[in-house]
């Protein structure tokens, strides 16, 4: 049988490349100074979904919540084998913690026909690994976290192997299910040239609008609206319109979105300055090192 997969992805700042320039004076991170990338383990989740499609058939839908710029990871997903892409963008999503995020995503996933929901194990900007399990709870479906191998799909039954740090666990459950996928699960494929050719012009309505506004500075609002509508339907016909949903379309209860939907708040942010209180330079000579060893023995650091 064929399986419909929904993959939740996130565009994240490349935290591995943080340098001094990326830190503001008040100790916060200047996200604009960091390149925005496809969250690495979300690529593993997408790869697993596309492998399922390749083997059994079905459809892969990719969803992200973020700023309009997050459309680039949706396009990237289309290049790598996704069939449909949805951007949830709404200013009222701002300041959502993991709980509010999982609520908003659950509203979106419910609108899609799914058998398997896939998430990366965690996102590198927060490393919380919370949204997957929280989303599974909101959807009322079982979760299998830390998936390192999809062992079997047979009818409505799934068997997967979880990485439980020093070891593994093989579990089985009935669909629908939510999986969180680790970086060890697979080697994500690269963008396919053919698909890149096909989807490089895929756009969200907001991208269409931005471009038309820039190109038609003289036009009034009604004209712009008409141009946008026309361009969007043209893209849609070609299968190149990335869906764009807001909280109204999702029918989300605003109490549970954004700041008001987020129980956790930031009290304080500090930048990390680690420094040893006392330090000594040791000569790399035989004597320098022997003296240091003696000192460490004398103060009972080495016994």
């Amino acid at each position, binding site marked *: 049988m064929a399986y419909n997969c929904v993959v939740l992805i996130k565009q994240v700042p490349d935290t591995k490349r943080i340098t001094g320039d990326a830190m503001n004076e008040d100790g916060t991170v200047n996200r604009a100074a960091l390149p925005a990338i496809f969250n690495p383990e979300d690529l593993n989740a997408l790869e697993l979904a596309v492998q399922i499609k390749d083997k059994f058939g079905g459809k892969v839908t990719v969803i992200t919540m973020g700023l309009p710029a997050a459309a680039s990871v949706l396009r990237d997903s289309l290049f790598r084998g996704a069939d449909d892409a949805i951007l949830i963008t709404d200013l009222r999503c701002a300041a959502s913690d993991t*709980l509010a995020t999982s609520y908003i995503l659950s509203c979106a996933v419910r609108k899609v026909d799914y058998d398997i929901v896939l998430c990366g194990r965690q996102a590198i900007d927060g490393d919380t690994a919370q949204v*997957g399990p929280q989303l599974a709870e909101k959807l009322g479906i079982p979760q299998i976290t830390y998936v390192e191998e999809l062992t079997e799909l047979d009818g409505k039954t799934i068997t997967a192997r979880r990485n439980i740090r020093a*070891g593994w666990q*093989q579990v*089985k459950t009935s669909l629908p299910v939510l999986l969180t996928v680790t970086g060890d699960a697979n080697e994500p494929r690269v963008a396919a040239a053919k698909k890149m050719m096909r989807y490089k012009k895929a756009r969200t309505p907001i991208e269409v609008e931005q471009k038309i506004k820039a190109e038609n500075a003289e036009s009034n609002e009604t004209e712009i609206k008409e141009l946008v509508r026309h361009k969007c339907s043209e893209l849609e016909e070609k299968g190149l319109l990335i869906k764009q949903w807001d909280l109204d379309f999702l029918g989300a209860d605003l109490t549970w979105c954004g700041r008001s939907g987020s129980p*956790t*708040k930031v009290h304080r942010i500090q930048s*990390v300055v680690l420094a040893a209180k006392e330090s000594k*330079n040791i000569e790399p000579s035989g004597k320098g090192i022997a003296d240091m060893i003696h000192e460490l023995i004398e103060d009972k650091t*080495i016994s």
Partner: protein
Amino acid sequence: MIDVNRRGEVWVFGEQHNGRLEDTPIELMSKARRLADKLGVKLAAAVLGNGVDELAARLIQYGADRVYVAEHPLLGTYQTNSYAKVMCDLIGKYKPQIVLYGATITGRDLAPRIASAMKAGLTADCTDLEIGDHKGQDGQVHKNLLFQIRPAFCGNIIATIINFDRWPQMATVREGVMPCPEPNVKRRGEIVAEKVQLAQQDLPLEILAEHKRAKKVNLKTARVIVAGGAGVGNKDNFKLIWDLANCLGAAPAATRAAVDLGFIDSDHQVGQTGTTVRPVLYIAVGISGAIQHQAGMSGSQKIVAINNDPEAPIFQIAHYKIVGDLNDVVPRMIKAIKTVARGS
């Protein structure tokens, strides 16, 4: 969620597998004890399982005033849904103000499920916890909240998170960042046996097989650690790390880069994605000192760093800085240690 409940207890999830208590609930006990004392409330643990009543006495020895024991044949093996259901029932019944979990595979699978079901806040992977006051944007002061302190952005910033209205205040706490307290066998406490209502539908998973191998090294309890980084160069040269560790009776460890290069098994990895360690002595060999690595070892009492790059960030936190070629320095250290050993 539950309402703000100033008389609520501080809870620790007593994670156990096969009747064996994990290290994390024990590590959490001394910190949780301090939080409870500061708030003037009881410290309690919740233990779920089948045939686990003996663990309650141990948790009391480590600092709990009260232990809630939920026993049921269907709780014999951990499953997200069954454990989440029982924890939600317990939290709803007793309304603790704080619930803490180890940030283990199980804790990070379970706690978000509970938080979502309770519509309560949860902070992941905390490295410290404190009690403090928070002034909201509206100017209102919320007293005695749980400060949930965690690194973010790959350890480049430390965020303090609070939850002032949708309780309980919940957090998972990174393994190994808090030292295990000594048990006090004379401590007395209360054991509360809970009635558990579970049906087969609360267990959607079937656990087919499990394989747990012993970790090749226990870095958390090591008194001295000798760690090598990418700067060691290759797997053959990594023998230097083993040699130095052996002559010190130390545990050999590595950075993620060295593990990724195949110098040593990932069981030996120290850092944000590895083990957090706090030994008496940490010898960093050929380690530049990326913030992710520092996050896992900066709590070491003494740090010796050996690197040929005087600008390496590791030197900022080192107590003994040796700028030089590790291929000269490490053999000299081994020689010096052996000389002393012979002399004594």
